[in-house]
Structures are given as structure tokens and as C-alpha cells.
């Protein structure tokens, strides 16, 4: 796979304050990269450098192999930038807003009309074409921002806190839109504080703190790197209140070579920690059924992005 974004030794100093320190990062084309970190960690600065809005103090950043500082004019058509503020003109209609930015991207005539219709359809804003931009809800405003980003059909989308301030429904709709963009083959760099959203939208993450990149890579790899426990939660049907079935499950797997530990979870539940190198856990279900116990629920609990973030920002990853 080719690299959509490549950063080497990126440093940015604002009036004596170091916002980024020697950042190295590579994002492959087609990836959805979740950029997470506390406030002031350097996420927006990194995105702005990639968007050609801020010049780095040191290091190098490339988008699709093109240097963002030396060849910023060539980078601009390749990126769609959505800042953490909407950046709307309150005296415009939705259609006018898109016309304006299409003109700014030098899209003229029939292609402009066609492209605007396409992005309005994609973002489901077609009915709002003649609505004042000012009257849009936050969720619709974000969709309009995304429509603006897509006008010139960029290969890389840089989305800075796109889910901030959205209500649950708008957040779900926005997530669906992002997933659709992934299916279209766009490379996405999404910064967010809503870590559960990052987990649902992205396949790779980067964790940044105080201008330093602490981790970058696939989410699954982060779990493995953390040495995460693999815990299986099992629930079986209980006839009475003496937890006889749960105790039977405990007896069943006690001493099993793939099981490291087990303990009752209460109300017919058992928690079983299995060895991290065991890939196939289907033997658990088979053994329970063979013992004539009624299996109600079986799931593997894994570390969430929040867990990973907390672990990493506490310095648990070297």
C-alpha cells in the first residue's frame, strides 16, 4: 500500500512553546486514522501543518508523497480540511456556500453544478440547498462542512474534532457518513475526544501527548502491545439460586491448559481468562453444551480505545 501521509521529525514551536516534538507518523492510503490526545497535545497543529495552514519549525510532512511546505499549491487539491469550527457565512444559503467554495477550488460550469449535486446527495442535504446556512443545526452544519471538504474530490480528509458538540443521533449519522467515505477509498485523519467514536470509525490510531506521539498503528496491535488480558464472559441458565450451573462451568474449565484463571461473576456468570496466544475460543461453547448446560451468553471482552488511551498516556507503552 502507498502512503497517504508521511511525517518525519515534525516539530512546531510557537513563541517559545513547543507544540510538536519530533513527530514521526505514516498513514497508508485508505486508512481511517484516529488521532487522539488531550487538549493542547498537538493534534490540531499536526492537522493544520498537513492542511498547509501552519509552517512547521522543523521536520517534513508529505501528503501523497508531496511536501506540504515546498509544494503547498500541489497539496491543496489533494486534501479536504474540516476544522473544529464550522466556518460558515451567515448570510449565505447552503447552495451558495458550496458554490462559493467550488469557485475557490476552481471548479467551473457544468462540473461545478454536478459536483455540488453529488456532495449534497452524499451528505443528505439536498433538501436544504436553499436553506440559510445560519439556520442549520450543528449536525447539519457538520455535514455541510463535510460536503464542502468533498467538493474537489480530495484523496485525504483531515477532520479536526468532527464529532464535537453533536447530539447522539447526529453523531451516529456522522459516523455512518465517515464509514461511507472509507468505503469510497478516502484516507481519513480524524482527531476526536469522543474515543468510542474513534473506535467505531477508524482502523488505526495515533496517541499524542504534549507534542509527542506515544503510539501509532492498528487498534488491534495496540491491544496486543499492551499485553491485554483476554477475558471471556459466560452466562448459563440457573434453575435455583445456588449457582449450581455456574459452579459446574468453573469445574469444567479448572485446570484446562488454555485457561489461565477463572472466577464466578454472579447470577449464572463466569469470567474465564484465557492465554493470549489462544486464537480459537470455540472450545468453551462446545464443552458447556457437551456438559448439558444451557449456554445463554458468551462474549470476549477486549480493551476499548478509551482503555488503550488511558494505558498509553500513562506511559505504559514504550
Amino acid at each position, binding site marked *: 500500500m502507498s502512503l497517504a501521509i508521511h511525517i518525519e521529525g515534525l516539530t512546531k514551536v510557537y513563541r517559545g512553546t513547543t507544540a510538536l516534538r519530533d513527530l514521526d507518523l505514516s498513514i497508508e492510503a485508505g486508512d481511517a486514522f484516529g488521532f487522539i490526545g488531550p487538549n493542547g497535545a498537538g493534534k490540531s497543529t499536526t492537522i493544520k501543518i498537513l492542511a498547509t495552514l501552519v509552517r512547521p519549525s522543523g521536520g517534513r510532512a508529505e501528503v501523497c508523497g508531496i511536501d506540504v511546505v515546498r509544494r503547498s499549491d500541489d497539496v491543496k487539491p489533494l486534501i479536504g480540511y474540516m476544522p473544529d469550527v464550522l*466556518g*460558515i*457565512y*451567515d448570510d449565505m444559503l447552503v447552495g*451558495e456556500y458550496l458554490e462559493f467554495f467550488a469557485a475557490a477550488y476552481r471548479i467551473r460550469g457544468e462540473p461545478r453544478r454536478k459536483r455540488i449535486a453529488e456532495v449534497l446527495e452524499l451528505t443528505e442535504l439536498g433538501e436544504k440547498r436553499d436553506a440559510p446556512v445560519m439556520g442549520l443545526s450543528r449536525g447539519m452544519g457538520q455535514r455541510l462542512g463535510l460536503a464542502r471538504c468533498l467538493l474537489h474530490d480530495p484523496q485525504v480528509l483531515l477532520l479536526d474534532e468532527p464529532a464535537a458538540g453533536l447530539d447522539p443521533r447526529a453523531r451516529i449519522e456522522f459516523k455512518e457518513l465517515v464509514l461511507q467515505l472509507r468505503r469510497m477509498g478516502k484516507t481519513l485523519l480524524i482527531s476526536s475526544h469522543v474515543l468510542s467514536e474513534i473506535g467505531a470509525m477508524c482502523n488505526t490510531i495515533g496517541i499524542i501527548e504534549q507534542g509527542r506521539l506515544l503510539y501509532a498503528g492498528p487498534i488491534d496491535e495496540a491491544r496486543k502491545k499492551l499485553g491485554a488480558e483476554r477475558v471471556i464472559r459466560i452466562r448459563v441458565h440457573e434453575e435455583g439460586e445456588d449457582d449450581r450451573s455456574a459452579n459446574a462451568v468453573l469445574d469444567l474449565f479448572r485446570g484446562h491448559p488454555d485457561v489461565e484463571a477463572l472466577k464466578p461473576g454472579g447470577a449464572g456468570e463466569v469470567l474465564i481468562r484465557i492465554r493470549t496466544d489462544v486464537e480459537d475460543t470455540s472450545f468453551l461453547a462446545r464443552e458447556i453444551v457437551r456438559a448439558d448446560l444451557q449456554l445463554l451468553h458468551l462474549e470476549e471482552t477486549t480493551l476499548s480505545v478509551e482503555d488503550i488511551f488511558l494505558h498509553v498516556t500513562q506511559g505504559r507503552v514504550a
Partner: protein
Amino acid sequence: MGSSVGRLGRPFRSLARKSAASLAVVERDFLATVSRSRFVAIRTAVAAISALVVALIAIERSGSERDVIGRAIFTAAAVVVPLLIMLIAPATAAPAIVSEREGGTLSLVLASPVSPLAFVTAKFISRFLAILTLVLAMLPVAAVSLLYGGVPLNAFVEVIVLTLCFAALGVACGILMSARLRSVSQALLAAYLLAALGPVVPTAILAAFDQAGFGVPAEVIIESLNVTVAVPFVAWFNTLQGARSGGHDPDLLYWHAAVVAGAVVIALLLAARAVARESTGEGLWTQVRRFLPGRAGRSSGGRRSRGVFLGHPILDRGVRGSLLSHPTLGGYALPLLGAMITAGILWTALETLGFNRRGELQVAAVAGLGILTALGVLRVLAATSRSIASERRRGSLDLLLVTPMRSEEIAIGTLMGALLATSPLLGIGVLYGGIIVAIGGFSVPGILGWVVISTALLTFAGALGLRASITARSPTHAALRTFGIFFGSIAAIVLMFFIVAITRMDNDFLKFVAIALPPVLPFYGTWALDSVSANSSQMPGTEQFLTVVFAVGGYAISAALLALRSAAALEKSRD
């Protein structure tokens, strides 16, 4: 007994508590306003420049003409002081409430025992007192005329009363717009439209007629106009007549003062109503705005989105931002009305009284055109100063910078958009000048020259505003900074009323500097071009014509350099 006294005293105690709270607002606001460095600078500049001019005139003319000099100084002061106050008062008052709203402190004040009416009244008093300090800074200049003689004391008092009327009216309009609108720049523009621009144009033009000794009788003006509209400048004209010959109606001034007092009360009540509705949603203005075409927040029914109509997005944006966002008056209706009224009066006077004096007509024409240039400068400054700063505040500047457009394109497009939005004012000037040409008091080259001079000055002003906008911290900061520049330069308007004295100055270098000043250049330049084309021996000749050409070239080059520096500053914001 004691309890009944206590009950009786309760309303007074309550009133005293509220007054004390309001006084706190007055004190804080007054001190904050007058201690701003910008305000101190304006005060000092006005006083210093005015004093300098008086000193220069005094040196130039002396001896047996003391009475003449005294009257000349007084007449100039009587024109300039109210004019400056009329321009400064709305600008001083317009941020009063809206800045509290922007800063989030309005709700804190309203949550205190201060009532909305007490709050707006306190704001009015504090800003009026601040303007009073400016009046006091200017009065010594007018008072010099008393030392020379030839001016009755009551005329001096009448000018003070008139100035205070203008101050009260301007401050009240500023407070009203500040209570109703949502940003300082909107409030500034609206306050000007309401208080200053309408009366200033006809007043200044008529004052110029009066200066030229045209002597249009007051009854002709009153017959030609609706008296209600004419009140401010008829009062002014009347006062000037009084200063010149004593043949005026003193009652008119006091009638005017009464009308102003009534207008102030109404304005404050409306402002208080708007402030009281702060937490209840739509006020009267918002409701009216919903029905105006092209305004944000109204229903989009009937208007369909359309493409970029000027070919370039930034140019389109600049024009829309300046012009279409204020479609009601657009900043042109009142100047147009003023110019047309003045031309109408002139026509009526000629038809009725049979005047045919080219020189006087020419002075009146250049005065009117010069005022239109000053309005244009103000408008371009307002448009460009808020342009980039507003983009930055709403976050759309970054969206523009990530497009393939270059910084130069954004800077020059913004400047051109503001100039295009202001171009109707030039159209008004051409129309007005055309009428003067038809009457026979002006030449076509004179008008064309005015267009060239004004375009150069507007471009320069726009570039200055653009630069201020790019380096400002916020749109409010940019607007205030730009108005500071404008008022700093407008102090030189004092010179414009001494144009005859300038033409007779012995020192060529000082004369060149005086001519090149923005408020003087359109007057002098238009006059010079008209005179050269009319081959008049009394008026400026080829040498002065070349001086104007060099000054215009200087402004044009400066504008180009400023625009390029602005683009560089925009680019540098990436660092």
C-alpha cells in the same frame, strides 16, 4: 407611625439603590471610554490641529482685518466642531451595549438591580460626557474668534448648544443601534446611517454654500424640503446665518433642541425595550429584519441559491459582505437623498432668485463631492477592516487558505470587492456633479478628476483597512482601529474649510503637504482640475494640477504596496 414612614420611604430607598447602581455603570463606562488611548489621541489631535490651523491663519492675516479673521475662524469652527461631533458621537456610543453583549457581561449587569432603562440611560450619560470632553477640547479654537472680535457672544453660545444637540442625537442613535444589533461593526454602521450620514451630507454642503456667500435664504430651503427631515441642518444653517449677519431666528435652534431631546428619550426607551427583550428572543429589529430582502435569518422562501455572480469568489464575497448585508439603505440612500436635496435646493434657488455665479457654485460642488469621498472612505474602511478579521473569527479564513487561491488573490479580491460595493457613491457624485454641470457651474473634466482622485483615495483607505483587518486581534479591534485611523485623519477636515488660505500659503512644501491630506485632496484636486479645464485665472493653475497628480499617484502606489504587504501578512500567519 414609624412603619408607615418606612413604607413611604421604601420607593425612595429603592430608587436611591437603583440610582447608585446606575451611577456605578456611568462611572465605569465614562472612565473606560475617556481613558482609552485612542480617545485621548483623537482629543489631542483635534485640539492640536485646530490650534495649529488657527495659528497659521493668524500669522497669515493680521492688522486691520481682525474682525474679518474673527468671523472666518468662528464660521469655520461652527462648521467643523458640530461636524466632527456628529461623526464621532455615534462611533463612541455604538460599542457601548453590543460590546457588553459580545463579552458576555450584559447578562451579568441585567441580573443586578440595574434596570434596562437605567442601564441604557447610564450608557447614554457616560458616552455623552465623554463626547463633552471632546467639545471642551475644541472650544478654545472657537473661542479664539472672540479675541479677534466681530462675533457676538450669543452666536458662540448657540454653536455650543447646537453641538451638544448633535452630540446627544449621535450618542442616542449609537446606543439604540448598540442595543438592537449583534456586532460592534453592525452597530457602528447603523448608528452612522441613522445619526450622521443623513444630516452630514446636506448640512456640510449647505454650510459650504453658506461659506461661499451664496446666501440661500432659509425660506427657500424650508419650502424645498420636508421640515422634519431638515431640522438638523436647518438649525445649523440658521446658526451659521446668525454668526454671519445676526439675521436669524434664535427660536429655531431651541425648537431643534426640543426635538433632539424628544428623539433622545424615544431612542433610549426603544433601546431599553431591546435590552429588556435580551432573554426573550426576538426584538423589534429582528422581526423587521426578517422581512427585509437579503438578510440573514429570514425565511429563504422565494430566493434560490445562485452561483458566484462576479466571476471570482472573493470579489463576490467582498461585495456581498459590504453591500447586500445592508440592503435597506446600503449606505447610499441617505447620501443620495442629501445630494439630490442639495442639488434641488440649488436648482430652486437659481430658478427663484436668478443666481448665476460660477465660482460659488464650484465651491458648493466640490464641497458636496468631497463629503461623498469622505463617506466613501468611511465605508471602504468599515468594509475592509472587518473583512479578514471576521473571516478569522468565524473560522472561514482557514477554509479559504486551504483552497488553491493565493494570499494575494484573497487580499486584492477583498479590496476590490469593498471598492465595488462603494462604487455607487461615486455614481451619486457623478449624478450630483452632472446637475451642477447642467446648471453651468462646473466642468465635465472636474467631475472625472473627482472620480479619479476619489478612486485613488478609496483604494488607499481600503488597503489601510485591509492591513488593519489582517493584523487585528478581532473584528471589533479591527473596526475600532480603523475608525481611529479615520477620525485621526478627519481632524484634517479642519483644513478643508481653510482651502482658500491653503491656496495662498507661501511655503510650497507645507502647501503640498496640506493639499495631499486625504480630506483636502478631493476638494482641492477637483477644484484644480475644474479650474485648469475652465482656464480660470483666479483658480489653481497647472502647477497645482501637477501637485494633485503626484498626490494621487502617491496614494495609488501606497495602496498597491499596502495590499501586497497585507497579502504577505496573510501568508506570514502560517508561521
